[in-house]
């Protein structure tokens, strides 16, 4: 049910974008809404991150996943249990670039019913990392439509991405990988019972949104090719704050662009916030140094404690009776 709502939403949005543009509203879907979406994205994201930044981290609570640094002759696992800032950077890099924690999933495997070994359960990790990296590369590739002249690294990325030169225009590896990985992530959300049980509309919606964006992008490039130079003129108009809407752009492109606008606008209000959030997780981005140096809680306040004096006052006779030293006789 939740999934159908998400499918319906995405389909409707796509149709709105495409039919709207076909009906002559190119200025709305090509200029006004993209500006609005980028504005919502930037302000929404900044507001959310600033809100996080304004919430203090009162305690130093890293989840330690390896040996601490203690005695000189015991080797610490710096990347799993960082004892200083460089190690934290290393740990965060592994997490953000390599999805370290998802890679931790292990399964026991019984060989011949006797010997126990361990296999890494790679599926979720692979699906996630392929999807995210492919999305980043696809994003970089799109810079060719947003910049003039196009910087060298964009062309370089395109060249590597299209290395096999299959198809005309060249089919990018990341296009296929992106759609494949998304399809897998959707499949597992539906196929694994516990994941399906916990899934909300807010989980399906971004998946279908990305699938539709990727799919329509692929379609625009490989099937119903549109005039790419006009598309670039449109986009450059936006970046130069001198918007123009060239005539010969396929309505399909406006469907694609509208979904991207929706994604940008939806981003700061959704679980997609995990993108900035992963940098700020206190269980990952803090060094395990609470005994080495004092972490200060900015909102610390005095609490009512039961002092030794109160304790002794209540129990003095018993302490004296038991032969324990007391402060006051």
């Amino acid at each position: 049910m939740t999934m159908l709502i998400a499918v319906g939403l995405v389909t409707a949005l796509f149709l709105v974008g495409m039919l709207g543009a076909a009906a002559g509203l190119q200025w709305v879907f090509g200029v006004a809404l993209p500006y609005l979406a980028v504005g919502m994205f930037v302000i929404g994201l900044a507001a959310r991150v600033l809100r996080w930044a304004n919430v203090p981290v009162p305690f130093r609570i890293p989840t330690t996943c390896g040996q601490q640094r203690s005695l000189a002759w015991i080797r610490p696992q710096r990347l799993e249990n960082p004892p200083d800032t460089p190690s934290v950077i290393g740990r965060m890099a592994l997490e953000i670039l390599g999805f370290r924690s998802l890679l931790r999933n292990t399964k026991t495997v019984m060989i011949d019913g006797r010997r126990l070994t361990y296999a890494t359960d790679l599926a979720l990790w692979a699906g996630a990392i392929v999807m995210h990296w492919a999305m980043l590369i696809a994003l970089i590739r799109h810079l060719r439509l947003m910049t003039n002249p196009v910087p060298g690294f964009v062309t370089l990325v395109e060249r590597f991405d299209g290395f096999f030169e299959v198809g005309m225009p060249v089919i990018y590896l990341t296009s296929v990988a992106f759609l494949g990985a998304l399809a897998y992530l959707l499949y597992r959300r539906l196929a694994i019972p516990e994941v399906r049980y916990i899934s909300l509309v807010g989980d399906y919606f971004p998946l279908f949104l990305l699938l539709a964006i990727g799919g329509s992008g692929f379609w625009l490039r490989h099937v119903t090719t549109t005039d790419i130079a006009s598309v670039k003129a449109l986009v450059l108009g936006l970046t130069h704050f001198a918007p123009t809407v060239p005539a010969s752009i396929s309505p399909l492109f406006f469907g694609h662009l509208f979904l991207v606008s929706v994604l940008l606008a939806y981003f700061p209000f959704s679980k997609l916030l995990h993108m900035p959030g992963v940098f700020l997780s206190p269980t990952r981005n803090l060094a395990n140094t609470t005994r080495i140096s004092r972490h200060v809680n900015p909102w610390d306040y005095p609490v009512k404690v039961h002092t030794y004096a109160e304790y002794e006052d209540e129990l003095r006779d018993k302490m004296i009776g038991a032969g324990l030293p007391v402060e006051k006789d």
Partner: protein
Amino acid sequence: MDTSRRRFLRELGTAAVGVGCLPLLDPARWLQEAAPVDATPSTTQWAMIIDLDKCRRNDVREACMSACRREHNVPRVPDPEEAIDWIWTEEYQHAFPDQVHARTAVAWREAPVLVLCNHCTNPPCVKVCPTKATWKRETDGIVMMDMHRCIGCRYCMAACPYGARSFNWRDPRPFVERDAGDKPLSEYPTRAAGVVEKCTFCSERVRTGRPPACVEAANAVSGAEGALTFGDVTDPESDVSRILQSEPTICRRVSLGTGPNVYYRVSRAPAPATDREGA
């Protein structure tokens, strides 16, 4: 014929209905590219007959090879390891290893033979190509190369028993012969580094009814008329059929079963040694 334009319009229409991005690939589009439109195979099979004797003349062979190079912008790479050859000269004993025996005369053994792609009836190179960049064209039996598709795996080179294929180890353009205006001699596309190339029986000439460049060049040398004969071997009235019916001819390595379509006339004994030295 279903033109691209109609397809374009149809796709626009499909997209407008909004199911545009559901079937991500249009299977018809790819199928069409892979399968030849004209499904009925033609009976044509181009073939060539090389007169061994006439082609022992250096100027005849040189005329053939040079014409080929100019016609197809074949580069002259100085390093023999990296040479690109569409038509070239082999010694008889190498061209016809199953025709020489212990008592074959040295003159015969070392006689120069003009060799090129045999455009086999049963080409092993085609079977191994992973991208179908080389294929036997059903309309005329030419073993074609599609440079756009070649990925340079060189399986075809390993498969060809005649060594008829060359690999571009480097960009061939600097080695292509130019005219005074520094333009290549022909409009024929050059190749890129990393692809395999070979003789195409001058398919672009044959298409317009002209004979291959080498045939034309050889026949233009005085006294060497008929050194190379080109024609449809399935047409009993063609020159090649006529010669094959009336004269002894041999083929390279028939025992391999590849069915070569380049034949050699062996009508006369080798000329005296003087001639041989020039080979």
